[in-house]
């Protein structure tokens, strides 16, 4: 519930149904604000089973998702609407 450390801001873009960057390293045990900017014209749904998040991002829109504090590890995520290309991983260390 820490007001002690400021939340880490992380920015990801969706372009051509892919995440950019698709691999993000973040410090473990810290709260993170994930900003996702969808640069495609079509909507996408950010989804991650391990992060337990799902959120629709309208075409040309953006979304803010709060995550963490995370234990060290790999947290995969994907775009539910384009699961073949839109994949990525958040590495907490």
């Amino acid at each position: 519930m820490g007001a002690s450390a400021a939340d880490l801001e992380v920015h990801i873009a969706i372009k051509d149904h892919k995440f950019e960057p698709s691999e993000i390293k973040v410090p473990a045990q810290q709260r993170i604000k994930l900003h996702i900017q969808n640069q495609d014209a079509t909507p996408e749904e950010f989804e991650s089973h391990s992060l337990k998040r799902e959120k629709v991002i309208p075409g040309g829109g953006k979304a803010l998702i709060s995550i963490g504090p995370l234990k060290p590890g790999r947290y995969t995520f994907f775009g539910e609407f384009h699961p073949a290309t839109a994949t990525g991983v958040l590495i907490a260390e």
Partner: protein
Amino acid sequence: MFATGLIVFRETLEAALFIGIIAASTRGLLNRSRWLALGVAVGAFGSLVMASAIGAISSWAEGVGQEIVSATILGTALVMLAWHCIWVSPHAHQTVQDAKRLGKLAAQGEGSLWALALAVALSVLREGAETVLFVAGLMSSPDASEIGMAVGALLGLSLGCFAGWLIYAGLGKVRPQYLFGVTNGLIVLLAGNLASQIAKTANQADWISSFSESAWDVAWLVSNDSILGMVMHGLIGFDANPTQLQLIFYAATTTSIWWATAHMKNRLAPQVGGV
């Protein structure tokens, strides 16, 4: 085509199972098909409206508009199911028994069907809006083979509906004296599923930040994306990797509805038995 079908199937399945269970639980009530069809129609229309407003919704409340809408939908559906279980079903049970004895449909249950119809509408709305967005996105992309996509989407939709029909038909095989208990039990679990998703939404929007750690992770055994995982999610609220908060919400909701229903049945027992 296959990928499109799978995504539409996944979105359809949860609502279809929900409707299948509700339909089975209201068998024998007068006008119930009309009420449930109305629920589906309102939900489908609402999906179109919500999908077209997604840009506006997403930017509300500093970016948590979707979570607010989602939690409202889930919460309202949860209240409807809880009210049905605790208040309506102990009365309705007796009404249906009486009606069966007289060989006619139970008219009295109708007064409460709107609650279940509303829950159905909300369930369709929640899954439907995503499906509309997904399909609309596909249709607008230039490289798409539109016929293949349309066939895939229809196939996914039909398969999802078929699964809903299967649970309905399957529950039809349950002996009438047990049917109320079984369907009510399933409705309590549906309510638990809604509560668990409210918890997930609350974590995501950062309204509640405690208990956000995993309670367990059985994805190696049954993943959320497997058919079994999806069906179990729709039926009992299965999640391969839930947070502690999801578990707390699920357990608190199911036990309190169960307890209140039992309490209400006991209170009603002397009155309804007599006449």
